[in-house]
């Protein structure tokens, strides 16, 4: 059976070059970077190369990069650590309604610790209005966090504009760049931001490694205590093989980015155009143009996402969905709901995340398989039956 992986939003595979770079650190070069001998030196040097590679990807200085265990950890660290460091100045933070749960739930934890949180709304495309940020700022605001792009609907946020507003008021601004770093050009100096989260498994690096960039001079309270690693900001023996892999993946992303963007954009635009043309009552979610190159997201009316996923999987196609039934907690995607999409329509959410291996033949295959899947589930759907009856009644 043909196999088509289109869930690169969940994770990308590991590039062979990245794997090759990592292998020595799973074998003979096993030293602890903190050790004062040749074994330790070799591990430490490799880690510092990776730090420079990651820094280069986002236009930062290497010393400002802190390696973490995931994008989630980076976000937890940023939200809690940056807010706590400034709690004497104020206890108010601002986040957008469509942030990843690692940001939203960290904000919720800060609330339990006595902070106040303002949640920014988004428009129907999932985009934050910078003016809403300005209006939400208070005397005691110490942190604003808005993601650079939402991986679920692809929309790119006006981070530069928001950063201009926060800078005028000298308020720390963090962005979750897990969906963007390694996928589109990111330059922290040009954006004028203070902190940024990224994750290795979003751009062909290994899982279990991420990084937080914090501008020099910005204070952050560590989440993990008990060691001198990462300048005392993240205790614990470093995951050297994964860090080396993250560095290599960053290097490859830096040099291959224009070609990757071109490749992804062609696939994305083809699917965004052809899928709604082939399947009626299907809407594109997220911004039609200003979106991640590798992201095509839709809601298919009258049917449910998990059932679509299962039928697609049975024909070798891997995608994801923000439907309530696909989540462990059985709640529809907070991103789609924040965009004003109804619970019913959100149930039909489908998300395609393109990868380096995908070709236009994969799109053809999806367009061949999906209409039959949708049709089969619609024939089963009482909502579709109702719709057909009502539309017949009108004509």
């Amino acid at each position, binding site marked *: 059976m043909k196999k088509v992986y289109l869930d690169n939003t969940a994770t990308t595979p590991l590039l062979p070059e990245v794997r090759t770079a990592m292998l020595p650190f799973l074998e003979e070069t096993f030293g602890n970077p903190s050790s004062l001998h040749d074994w330790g030196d070799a591990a430490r040097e490799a880690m510092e190369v990776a730090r420079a590679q990651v820094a280069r990807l986002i236009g930062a200085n290497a010393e400002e990069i802190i390696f973490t265990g995931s994008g989630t950890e980076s976000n937890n660290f940023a939200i809690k650590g940056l807010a706590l460091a400034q709690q004497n100045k104020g206890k108010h933070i601002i986040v957008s309604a469509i942030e990843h749960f690692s940001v939203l739930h960290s904000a919720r934890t800060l609330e339990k610790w006595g902070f106040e949180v303002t949640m920014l709304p988004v428009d129907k495309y999932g985009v934050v209005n910078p003016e809403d940020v300005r209006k939400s700022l208070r005397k005691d605001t110490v942190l604003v966090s808005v993601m650079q792009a939402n991986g679920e609907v692809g929309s790119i946020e006006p981070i530069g504009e928001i950063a201009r507003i926060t800078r005028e008021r000298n308020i720390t601004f963090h962005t979750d760049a897990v969906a963007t770093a390694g996928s589109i050009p990111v330059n922290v100096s040009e954006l004028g931001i203070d902190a940024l989260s990224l994750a290795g498994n979003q751009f062909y690096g290994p899982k279990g490694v991420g990084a937080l960039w914090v501008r020099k001079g910005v204070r952050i309270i560590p989440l993990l205590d008990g060691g001198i690693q990462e300048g005392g900001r993240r205790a614990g023996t470093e995951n050297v093989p994964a860090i080396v892999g993250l560095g290599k993946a960053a290097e490859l992303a830096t040099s291959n980015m224009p070609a990757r963007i071109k490749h992804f954009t062609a696939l994305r635009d083809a699917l965004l155009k052809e899928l709604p043309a082939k399947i009626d009552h299907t809407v594109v979610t997220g911004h039609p143009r200003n979106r991640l190159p590798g992201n095509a997201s839709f809601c298919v009316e009258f049917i*449910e996402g998990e059932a679509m996923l*299962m039928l697609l999987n049975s024909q070798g196609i891997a995608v994801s969905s923000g439907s309530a*039934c*696909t989540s462990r*907690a059985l709640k*529809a995607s907070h991103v789609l709901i924040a965009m004003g999409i109804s*619970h019913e329509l959100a149930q039909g959410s489908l998300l395609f995340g393109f990868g380096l291996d995908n070709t236009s033949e994969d799109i053809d295959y999806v367009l061949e398989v999906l209409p039959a899947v949708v049709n089969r589930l619609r024939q089963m759907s009482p909502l579709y039956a109702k719709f057909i009856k009502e539309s017949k009644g009108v004509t």
Partner: protein
Amino acid sequence: MPIYSAKVMEHFMNPRNVGEIENADGIGEVGNPVCGDMMTFYIKVKDNRLEDVKFKTFGCGAAIAVSSMVSEMAKGKTLEEAMKINANMVANELEGLPKNKLHCSNLGDEALHKAIENYLSKKSGKPVATRVETAGDEHEHETGEPCYCPYCEEEIMDADSPFCQHCQVALGSAPGAESR
């Protein structure tokens, strides 16, 4: 894919009795706006037996498999026998359902019972309650079927809470959310 039994997968891939019955003797509808599943059952009754049962379902793999199984279990049974089919029996016949889907997707028996009640009330010309309503049984589905924490399996009282009130684990969904 969700961890479904082979039996659930088989019914999902090859659902029995999908469709509507024209001039059905009874129609039963259950819906669940919070968790998102909706089922409509159609029955044809002859000599107090379910001569035919058909359904339409909007929902996940479990919801479709449950509907299919209920239709199969009910067909040919007397109305009294069919009224005894309950969610536990359906889950057992399906060789189990994931815990977090037990209460949100396992509504087929209710839809069937509603169809039978609909038939009986049409026949007698007045509303018929054929079973003892259990606490919150019916109107709960209109205001929101109780959902259960996928981690500690306690009931989630506040549907909008991002946390389970019992084990404090974060709830919610986003593609890739669990892989980050």
